[in-house]
């Protein structure tokens, strides 16, 4: 019974906690620019994330190591420092963009500018981390995040051409603006496959003291849960394609995203989308801060746990404290949250091999995962998707900005 409840909670957490500012805005941009044609990027990113999350849970359950812990131990400090620093830097940009997303949602409701909201949001996120437990951070906000199911409801009510949606799941060449097409594809992949997610997941598995008996739960929550969450992201793309393309509206700001369901769901469409823009990113701010503290603590050997009082893991707690309040700076300094989101998503895609390649090597090392090594399908799928993301990022960024 307890395990059934854990599976149910894990599934709900995966669904409710999936959408955040990066996945919402990149999917909306994809839908607005190319209708359903970029569905394949959402699908590919989701599949890759599901595989990586399952692997990180498996690594933690069998080896009793988190990803960062295992990379440091297996490859040594001089090598492990590089992916840790890269992931920390990119994650910081993502965190700032998520904070900006929450601030925008509050601006939409109150009319008060985002610069005024940045610090209060950071303070509330910090309070959740300071006083809360791992379960509260992971599951509490994700349960509220079920509000994002409004995109599924809206997509169904819009009666899109589901055949065209299915067709979009197969990669095709764009009929116009190829540089822009591939740029959005890269940003969708970067929004889906963010390293902080699987680092957070593996640390969480250690916090929850997983062992080999949790492997089936891991497969369901990481695999099935993520696929459902990815389906929600696809629904955002479908809604944007159905609503914005006929009106000739591109997504250049989050305001345009907030309008997505106002026609088909009226006032509730506005309220629930704005709630989605607030809750999902808020959860992401807390998770990224925690994931970053996990990285630093595991890399350097500090005490760490979200389930102990901050004084019992002082360096760990102060690290996320400093980070949460530093993330206010980009918004206070006037950086546009949507532009910051796009930059951080593309940089995430470009930096993926740095964190994923050593992780894949660990998943094939019997000393860590014993008889639970990766199969060739998992290895090939992850390696190909990650390599493709990086190559696309290298190619599409100059094309996008140098008039390709």
């Amino acid at each position, binding site marked *: 019974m307890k395990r059934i409840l854990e599976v149910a909670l894990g599934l709900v957490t995966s669904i409710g906690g999936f959408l955040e500012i990066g996945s919402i805005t990149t999917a909306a941009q994809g839908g607005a620019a190319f209708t359903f044609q970029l569905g394949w990027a959402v699908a590919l990113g989701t599949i890759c994330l599901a595989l990586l999350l399952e692997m990180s849970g498996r690594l933690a359950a069998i080896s009793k190591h988190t990803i960062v812990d295992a990379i440091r131990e297996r490859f040594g400090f001089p090598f492990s420092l590089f992916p840790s620093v890269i992931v920390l830097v990119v994650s910081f940009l993502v965190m700032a963009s998520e904070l900006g997303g929450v601030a925008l949602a509050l601006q*939409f409701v109150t*009319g008060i500018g985002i610069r005024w909201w940045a610090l209060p949001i950071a303070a509330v996120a910090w309070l959740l981390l300071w006083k809360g437990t791992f379960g509260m951070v992971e599951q509490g906000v994700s349960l509220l995040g079920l509000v994002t199911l409004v995109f599924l409801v809206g997509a169904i009510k819009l009666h899109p051409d589901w055949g065209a949606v299915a067709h979009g799941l197969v990669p095709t060449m764009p009929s116009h603006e190829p540089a822009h097409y591939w740029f959005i594809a890269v940003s969708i992949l970067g929004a889906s496959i963010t390293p902080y997610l699987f680092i957070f997941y593996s640390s969480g598995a250690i916090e929850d003291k997983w062992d080999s008996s949790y492997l089936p739960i891991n497969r369901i929550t990481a695999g099935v849960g993520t696929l459902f969450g990815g389906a929600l992201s696809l629904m955002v793309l479908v809604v944007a394609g159905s609503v914005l393309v006929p009106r000739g*509206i*591109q997504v*250049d700001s989050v305001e345009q995203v907030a309008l997505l369901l106002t026609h088909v769901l009226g006032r509730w469409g506005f309220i629930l989308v704005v709630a989605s823009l607030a809750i999902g990113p808020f959860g992401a701010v807390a998770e990224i801060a925690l994931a970053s503290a996990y990285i630093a603590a595991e890399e350097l050997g500090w005490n760490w746990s979200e389930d102990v009082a901050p004084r019992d893991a002082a360096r760990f707690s102060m690290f996320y404290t400093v980070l949460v309040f530093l993330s206010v700076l980009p918004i206070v300094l006037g950086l546009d949250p949507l532009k910051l989101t796009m*930059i951080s998503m593309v940089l995430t895609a*470009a930096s993926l091999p740095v964190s994923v*390649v050593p992780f894949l090597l660990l998943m094939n090392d019997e000393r860590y995962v014993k008889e639970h090594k990766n199969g060739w399908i998992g290895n090939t799928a992850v390696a190909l998707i990650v390599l493709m993301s990086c190559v696309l990022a290298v190619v599409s*960024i100059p094309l996008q900005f140098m008039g390709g």
Partner: protein
Amino acid sequence: MPAACVARACGATISLATACLVTACGGPPAPSEAAQTVGSWGATAQFVTERWNQSAVSRKFTVVTLRRAGSELEALAKKVAQLPDTANGRATLVAGLREIRAEIAALDTAAVHDDHATAARIAPKLAIAAAQMDTLGQRLQSQQQAQSK
């Protein structure tokens, strides 16, 4: 060591990406791109006004969105002014941009004063102007693609 090579390659990629993203902030856009962006913001302003008149969105959000549209088009106007006089479609683009900015400013005033009647009168004109800009953008884009072949 292969892993170190991967790490160095990614470091170089990230540096290139960051440099490109940073340098992207300058320079005028292509007229086709600018026209579609103008049309997009015009359509956004019309859409939010229509939703506000249907009570689907709040007045505060309407004002925020209209102000956002206004500031984006103001920034775009400065970039469009850098386009050479001989640029294809420039004159139509500048005229359309001016008209749409004026209508958005009028909508902003109407929204601030909770004047639904004025907003309802301006919105259809804005929709037409936005559609014209979108059509211009697509035409210029087709011409560009035909020329590059």
